[in-house]
């Protein structure tokens, strides 16, 4: 799926994992254990899909990775920083971390290009942001990001005139413009139709080919198998599978979703 030369990453980077979760535990008293002793590492340039039924702990895991929820035990390090050690560590980790939301969260009345430029805001002087006067190099960079997700011809279109799938791809371009090392996508295709889901995941795949690491939670097993390098499956707050996507057969993964004889649609 991705071109081979893009998967080759510099040796210095490939040694250091982009994200490392160790013995992560989060309880919601009195009775819910959202995450129980979860450990895994994400290597640079990987596309990791997190699978699991509702309530398996996917969202809690993402909230711990982005620093929104404090775990009860365990460590989370992103781009080599232990994000729960100090607020400073969290802030500098966040600059290298981009989020993709289920509801896209674009600024409705701005164009696709202007939405991608949101990714540049942290590095642009305030007066330029207020006047919306970006430099040519920032605009060119943003257009390049739109090209990566296949939407460079819609650069001037207002965000609320784009389809759901296109909006999510603009959000991916925004993450690319942020020059993030890692993209965290919590249910990026949960509110999209199958066709748009495929184009959005293909865009995430293109992002990976530019050297970015992607961790995405998904509901559909076949999409995870088609687009991800690796699948981490959660059930009841525990990792029940962690293997290369190609090594897992469909039956194994579908068992993750079986609960009391009921099977969620996959």
């Amino acid at each position, binding site marked *: 799926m991705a071109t081979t030369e893009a998967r080759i990453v510099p040796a210095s980077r490939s040694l250091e994992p982009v994200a490392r979760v160790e013995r992560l535990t989060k309880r919601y008293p009195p009775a819910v254990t959202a995450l129980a002793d979860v450990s895994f590492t994400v290597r640079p340039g990987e596309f990791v899909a997190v699978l699991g039924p509702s309530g398996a702990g996917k969202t809690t895991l993402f909230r711990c990775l*982005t620093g929104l929820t404090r775990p009860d035990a365990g460590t989370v390090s992103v781009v080599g920083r232990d994000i729960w050690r100090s607020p400073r560590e969290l*802030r500098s980790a*966040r*600059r290298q971390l*981009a*989020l993709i*939301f289920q*509801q*896209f*969260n*674009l*600024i*409705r*009345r*701005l164009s696709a290009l202007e939405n991608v430029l*949101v*990714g540049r*805001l*942290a590095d*642009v002087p*305030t007066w330029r*942001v*207020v006047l*919306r006067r970006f430099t040519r190099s920032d605009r060119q960079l943003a257009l390049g990001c739109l090209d990566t997700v296949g939407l460079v011809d819609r650069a001037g279109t207002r965000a609320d005139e784009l389809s759901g799938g296109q909006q999510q791809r603009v*959000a991916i371009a*925004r993450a690319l413009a*942020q020059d993030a090392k890692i993209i965290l996508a919590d249910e990026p295709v949960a509110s999209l139709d199958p066709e748009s889901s495929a184009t959005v995941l293909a865009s995430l795949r293109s992002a990976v080919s530019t050297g970015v690491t992607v961790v995405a939670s998904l509901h559909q097993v076949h999409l995870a198998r088609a687009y991800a390098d690796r699948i981490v499956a959660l059930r009841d707050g525990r990792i029940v599978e962690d293997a290369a996507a190609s090594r897992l057969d469909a039956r194994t993964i579908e068992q993750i979703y079986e609960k009391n004889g009921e099977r969620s649609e996959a």
Partner: protein
Amino acid sequence: MATVARRAGEYPEPVVTWWSGRRLRFVVVLVLLGAFYSASWHLAKVDPGRLLTGLPKMAGWAAKAWPPATDELPILLLRTAETIAMAAIGTTAAALLALPLCVIAARNVTPSLALYYPARWFLNALRGVDSFVFALLFVAAVGLGPFAGVLGIAFHTWGSTAKLWAEAIENIPPGPLEAAAATGASRVKVIAYALLPDVAPSMVSVGLFWWEFNVRASTVLGVVGAGGIGQELKNSMDLLLFPRLLTIILLILVTVTVIDHTSEWLRRKLE
């Protein structure tokens, strides 16, 4: 779909209790409302008889007012222009002052709650005092004339606009702001880039509404000596110059209608 298990007439109906707490509460509210209106009727000294005896007097004035006086039209038109100018300057000044205040007074973007509550109290105080009352105070402070009217309008509108703008800001979806903040952008950048484009149309709409409202309000500000057509209105009434009074009322009607339609048209174009 449920299958029909019984014939009509055989279904048990939900039990209705006639003296439930809710019903009792309803009766209490009715009694209190009745008491409120009867007290208000007395306090307001409502006397339909006096209206009946007063009506012929007004009809007499109306008869005397026709035809409207046209000899002073140039000065009356100047006073009308003065009224529109007062509203425009007052509303614009209020809008500029409201801009920083509405950010502080909007719960979702306020820099701190320690500023949020004082800001709310301040703009509620401004809103609570009518522009008519402010104008009365400013006539005493800066003297007779339209400038006192401008200040009166500006202060009341400052509070009203800031409150409605703050509500517009609080109603926008939080997602795009969170997404922009998550890139590491500062609060000022997030407000300028992600918030402003979203609320700008409703803010302009609120501003136009207040301009329109203030043109109507400033037609009477002259009564307290704060300039504009209201001053001429009061003079004519005091001197019982009914044809002149009719001209003034017609001028006000035409002005207000034109402004209302312009403002409505502009606001529709924003959507």
